[in-house]
Structure formats: structure tokens, C-alpha cells
């Protein structure tokens, strides 16, 4: 799943249309949208760091996110001399207030260049070599607690620069600027998907795990042991019928002992 966060409704609207998202009316604190297949969700955070951080927590609680999900902050930002309408990924986020830095890990090939960004508390026209925004540091700081640095990204479209100041920015042209980048955003999601899938695979439970804990009462430590043993079973005893092996056993302890013994008595070959 991918979770998108936009500060303003005008940043979100083109994405809501593009990904055919519908509003989840049951959530009232922030406006949350989701695609029919639940693959993409979007929350409008409002402006500023407090709003961004709160919206992420709320979104996480409402949508039930997974550690292998992708997190995107998409919006507009200012820069000294990058032309208005151009798009950039962010490779370093600095919180202007306390100097703290974060480094989103861009592991995919992208036609979009990357730049550093500074998150400010107030809008500024004192343009620099880094992009300016008002949410990214809070977005990242919160998202990194829920996901992994390789799957949390900030993508900004330049809305103003030293030649075209914020006075030229309005909702209508922000909508147009974001709408012009939907292909780029699609490509970003496609580029991140294999990473997300691979991570989801490594986090998934071994085969038969749910069947076993559904049928036999297992303590937390027995569940951990069971996971380890089921993984080993799939490598070392894949020719044996697990369900039949366990069918007559009465307790989780017996299951663990049986698996342990069978695995230990099997031959081990490290290669095909």
C-alpha cells in the first residue's frame, strides 16, 4: 500500500482524480481518501509541521498501515532558481527550527533529480539552494517510525522561486502543476513497489503458521519459536506432510518438540 500526504486540497485534488480515490467519510479529523483496491490512500494534512505529524498518526490508526508500505509527501515548494513547474525528489530534509536532518534513501533509478529541502515554520521568500516547505520534516520524522527509509519519500513541484514569488501561486495553478506530474508520481510508485513487495515478503508469516496458532494455544515465546521452526521445516523437510505430522499432537509444546526433532534428524544440504 502507498500512503500519500498533501498539505492542501489543491495539491490533493489532481491525485484524488488520477488514482480514483473516494473519501472515507467515517474519519472526521482529517480528510482521508482511498482507492477501491485499497492500494493507495491519501490524507489532506493542512499546512505546517503539527498538522502533518498529527495527520500521519491519524492516517496510520485509521488505515492500519504495514511496515512494508510506501509513504509519500507530495506538494509544492519554493527554490532559488529551479524553474516553476519542475519536480524534484528530496535527498535530505533539514528542520530549520532545530537543525535535525533526515536522508530519504533513493534506491531506484529515476529521471527526476534530487535536492535538499529545508522545512520552515513560516513561509519565506529568502530563497536558497535548497527547496523550502512547511511539512516534510514532520512528515518524515513521523513516517520513519512506521516504515523504512527506502520507502518514505518527498516529492515536490516548484511553485515559486526568486523570479516568480509566492504572490503568483494560487490554488488553480497548484492544481495544474500537480496534475502535470501524475505520470512522474505513477512512476515513483511503480519504482518503489518491488522494494515494498520484497520487504512484505520478508515480514510475512511462514506457511501454516496461522493454521497452527488457530488450532493450538501458543504463548508469545512459543509463537516466535514456531515461526523459526516452520521456516526451517520448509527448507529441510519440504517433502514431508506437516499437517499430518502434527495432526495427533495436543499441545504447542509437543508441536515445537516434534518439529525440532524432525528438522534435526533431516539431512541438510545448503545448495540445490
Amino acid at each position, binding site marked *: 500500500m502507498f500512503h500519500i500526504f498533501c498539505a492542501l486540497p489543491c495539491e490533493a485534488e489532481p491525485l484524488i482524480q488520477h488514482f480514483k480515490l473516494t473519501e472515507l467519510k467515517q474519519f472526521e479529523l482529517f480528510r482521508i481518501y482511498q482507492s477501491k483496491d485499497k492500494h493507495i490512500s491519501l490524507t489532506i494534512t493542512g499546512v505546517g509541521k503539527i498538522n502533518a505529524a498529527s495527520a500521519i498518526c491519524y492516517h496510520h490508526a485509521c488505515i492500519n498501515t504495514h511496515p512494508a508500505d510506501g509513504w509519500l509527501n507530495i506538494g509544492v515548494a519554493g527554490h532559488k532558481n529551479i524553474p516553476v513547474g519542475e519536480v524534484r525528489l528530496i535527498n535530505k530534509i533539514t528542520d530549520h527550527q532545530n537543525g535535525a536532518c533526515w536522508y530519504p534513501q533513493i534506491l*531506484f533509478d529515476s529521471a527526476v533529480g534530487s535536492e535538499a529541502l529545508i522545512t520552515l515554520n513560516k513561509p519565506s521568500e529568502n530563497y536558497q539552494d535548497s527547496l523550502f516547505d512547511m511539512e516534510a520534516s514532520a512528515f518524515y520524522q513521523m513516517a*520513519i517510525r512506521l516504515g523504512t*527509509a*527506502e520507502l518514505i519519500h518527498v516529492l515536490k513541484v516548484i511553485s515559486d522561486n526568486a523570479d516568480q514569488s509566492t504572490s503568483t501561486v494560487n490554488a488553480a495553478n497548484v492544481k495544474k502543476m500537480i496534475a502535470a506530474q501524475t505520470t512522474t508520481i505513477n512512476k515513483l510508485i511503480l519504482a518503489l513497489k518491488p522494494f515494498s513487495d*520484497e520487504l512484505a515478503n*520478508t515480514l510475512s508469516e511462514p506457511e501454516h503458521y496461522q493454521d497452527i496458532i488457530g488450532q493450538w494455544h501458543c504463548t508469545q515465546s512459543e509463537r516466535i519459536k514456531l515461526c523459526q521452526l516452520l*521456516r526451517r521445516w520448509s527448507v529441510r523437510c519440504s517433502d514431508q506432510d506437516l499437517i499430518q505430522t502434527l495432526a495427533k499432537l495436543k499441545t504447542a509444546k509437543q508441536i515445537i518438540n516434534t518439529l525440532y526433532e524432525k528438522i534435526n534428524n533431516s539431512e*541438510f544440504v545448503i545448495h540445490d
Partner: protein
Amino acid sequence: MISMIYIEEEITDHPRTRSLLKRFPEATQISCERYGEVFNRKSQNFRLQKKKPALILAKKHKGLVLPTPKQYGIGAEHNYYFSHMLNCLYDCRYCFLQGMFQSAHYVLFVNYEDFIEDMQSMLSRHEKETVHFFSGYDCDSLALDPVTNFTAEFLPFFTKNPQALLELRSKSTQIRSLIKQEPIQNCVIAFSFTPDKIARALEHKAPSIEKRISAIIELQNAGWKIGLRFDPLIYTKNYAEEYTTLFNSVFSKLDADLIHSVSLGGFRLPKDYFRKLEKLYPEERLFSSPLEEEDNSISYPANIRNEMLEFCKDIILQHIANEKFFPCHEMI
């Protein structure tokens, strides 16, 4: 190959930083205050980063040259190790670096001069005694040599100081810089091996056994001393057959007189590292090996461990003299 380079502010103007940046003109440069801000952060995934590691240029401030654990050595009383780099181009599934580091990015400490100064002071501490320095603990010594210029920059120190010996631990065939220069007697190029089928299953991206042997032959012909490190020993049902084939192939092709030392080391990982590796690669067969926990580390049970060590030792001693053999050469 490198598309992102993080640069510590303090070494932005270091001559080695400047020349490295010239090698990768297309790479995006990102400044950071300390490399740990990128490298040591939690919530990053080693497995994902291994697909496209970035380069981090940094300065090593303390602990540049450290004493090795007691049992680690190849004959000298004073043993130290140093790491001009963290992480490796290759991706061996048994590698403890995956458990030790949060990030798979390559960290290169560009202040070689400080490492050399520290080595000099270690030598002064043990005047007139032999001191061994080991490289290749936190990285492969040679894999990135064309980029780091490591051997060309460090070997002159050893030429000047014959009481010091350098071991370069590697699986790499990047030997051009060594071949170009006169061999020195106090440098051992130590190659690690596992049997071919095991290497194919576990040593991802590393040169094949055949290529490693060819590199050794070239080095031996040029007059360099060679070390052989059968470490880690990896258990599989037919290990005896597979290790016999490996030993035959290695010892039949190499000049035994030019072999400086041979060592063995069992597969062993600190428990925490092992658990992390298991989580990163739950599908990996290695982690389903017959292993057990002992003293906070994970290794083969004593019967397997001893049987393998004895078996390998017997064959190795048919090929080399006892004084060149160091059975347990384990760092962690």
C-alpha cells in the same frame, strides 16, 4: 555504479575526497555533518539498500587501529586491525556486516594519513618486535581498490617498516595495483574460500573460486605472498567431498612455497547478528543449518564443528608445513 555520494562537511576539501568525486561526476552529492546520521540511523533496511548502495565519504576520528581479539592471528604476538572502509561490494549471506550495520552503504574513511600515523605509533610501542596489521575485517580489502587506491597508499608504509606485516583479506580479483608494483615480503594477500557449490549459493556477487585461484596464481608469479583462509567453514551433507575438491583444486594449482599461511574458521555469528540476518533473509537455507546457541553466539554444534575442523586440517597438512597452519582464525 555509485549514484549517490554523502560527504561529511569536515572532509569536503580533503584531496582524496576531491579526487574521488571526480571519478563519479554524475553522482548526486549530499552533504552531512557526520556519517552516522546516514549510516547508523534505525529504520533502514540492509537488504533493500544492498541493491544500490551509496558511497559515504567520512573521517575516522577514533579507534583507527585496534587490537584484534586474542585468538586472532597468524604467528605474531602483537596483532591489530583497521578498516579504511565499512561494508563490501559483495553480498555473502554469512557476512556478519549485515548483522552489525544498519546500512549497506559503503563508508570510506578518507583520512588514510591518520591510519598510517596510528600504525606508526603502534610500531613505536613494540619497538623491534613484529607487529601484524589486518585489513578486511569490516570490508573486502581489494574489491574497491581501483576506486579507493588503498593498496597504493598504504603499502609504502610497510615497505619502510619491515617489522610490520600487513594482511589484506579479500575475495576480489582487483589485483592490478599490486601487480603493477614490486612485491614486498611483509604483505600477505589472504584469499577466503568455500567450496564452489557453497560459494555459488552464498557468496553473491563475489568472483568465482576459479577466478580467485587465477588471481592468486598471477600474484604468486609476481612474487607476492599468499594466505589461504578457509573461513567460514560451511556445513552441508557432502561437506567432506566438497572441501576435498576445493583443497585439491587450490593446492594443485598454487605454489606451496609461496603460501605464507593457511587458516580455518568455523561459521559463527553473535546471536543478535544472527537473529537480524534471519529476519532480513528468512528464506535463506544457511539459517536453517544445524546450528545452536552457545555463549551468546550461534555456531554448529561441537560434534559438527570439530569433525569439520579435523577433516580439513588433515588434508591441509598434507599440502603445507605445520608452522604455516593456523587452525582457528576467528575475529568475531
